[in-house]
């Protein structure tokens, strides 16, 4: 029996190797958000045109809140047309798309908005307070808020048509109550 104890030495390596193998299944950069299901933090910004922008004005609608930056290539450049397209399609159905530009300079940001012809409200978060409030750790990140103003989904990375529609349709289908 004592002879068998020695085989513990190679066997001890197995749990470590198994743990490392498990590492392939997870993405260390994908951090789940603790804000899901909680009321979306309020903010008061001004759009690039100068009009005030806040969530309160859009209560009762499904809100797609998108954080972007002009230097974020290629993801933000891929999703901008997607957002604009879907905005135009859904704007009369009680959905609003809001863009927040973070860690950016005014000029390149305005250029970005012009380049993609974005018509949904976009504001610049100069101090970064809004992005921290939403637990944003990179761009692009998109939050889908329901009609009661709660964060329901956080999508990290570029938004595609499929992602947009799936989430928005589901939230629209829910009974809305002020």
């Amino acid at each position: 029996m004592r002879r068998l104890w020695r085989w513990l030495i190679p066997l001890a390596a197995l749990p470590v190797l198994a743990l490392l193998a498990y590492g392939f299944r997870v993405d260390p950069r994908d951090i789940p958000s603790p804000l899901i299901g909680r009321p979306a933090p309020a903010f008061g910004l001004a759009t690039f045109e100068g009009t005030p922008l806040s969530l309160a004005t859009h209560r009762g609608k499904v809100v797609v809140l998108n954080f972007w930056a002009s230097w974020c290539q290629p993801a933000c450049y891929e999703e901008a047309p997607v957002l604009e397209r879907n905005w135009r399609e859904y704007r009369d159905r009680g959905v609003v798309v809001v863009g927040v530009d973070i860690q950016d300079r005014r000029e390149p940001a305005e250029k970005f908005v012009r380049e993609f012809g974005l018509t949904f409200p976009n504001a610049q978060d100069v101090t970064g307070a809004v992005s921290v409030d939403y637990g944003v750790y990179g761009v692009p990140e998109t939050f889908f808020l329901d009609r009661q103003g709660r964060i329901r989904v956080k999508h990290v990375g570029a938004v595609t048509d499929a992602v947009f529609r799936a989430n928005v349709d589901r939230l629209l289908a829910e009974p809305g109550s002020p």
Partner: protein
Amino acid sequence: MSRLGLRLLTSLFFLGAAMSPVTAQPAAPASEETVHEVAAQLRCVVCQNLSVADSPSEMASQMRAIIRDRLAAGERPAEVRQYFVDRYGEWILLSPPRRGFNLLVWLVPLAAVVVGLVTVAVLVRRWTRHRRYHRPTRVDMDPAMSERIRREVNSE
């Protein structure tokens, strides 16, 4: 109270008054040190493994500003930390909160040290066992002889 005592008391009072602000002022801006302390415990979210205090990135700079503002508004460091944890999860703390499962990260290395020390102690005991049981018998030596030996050895 004696006159001396009264005089002492009043002078102390004025001394105290002179040292403290005469009018109630808003909380002083948080010392950079405290900001640094809190920032050193938070992970910079756009870098890899750097603290908010160390990171040169813009995001970290913005986070430091938020820390500064919140401390200046009167929040305690623990509350500021909690603010970030509420939004980013436990992940944003550079040292996991010492609760439950996370305690393992401190306890297991400690256990390893203890196990190592105990193992060495046991082994050393085992390896010196023969010395304790087979102590060489002292040879009684003639003092002149031992003196000669001592002198020879020391003169080397």
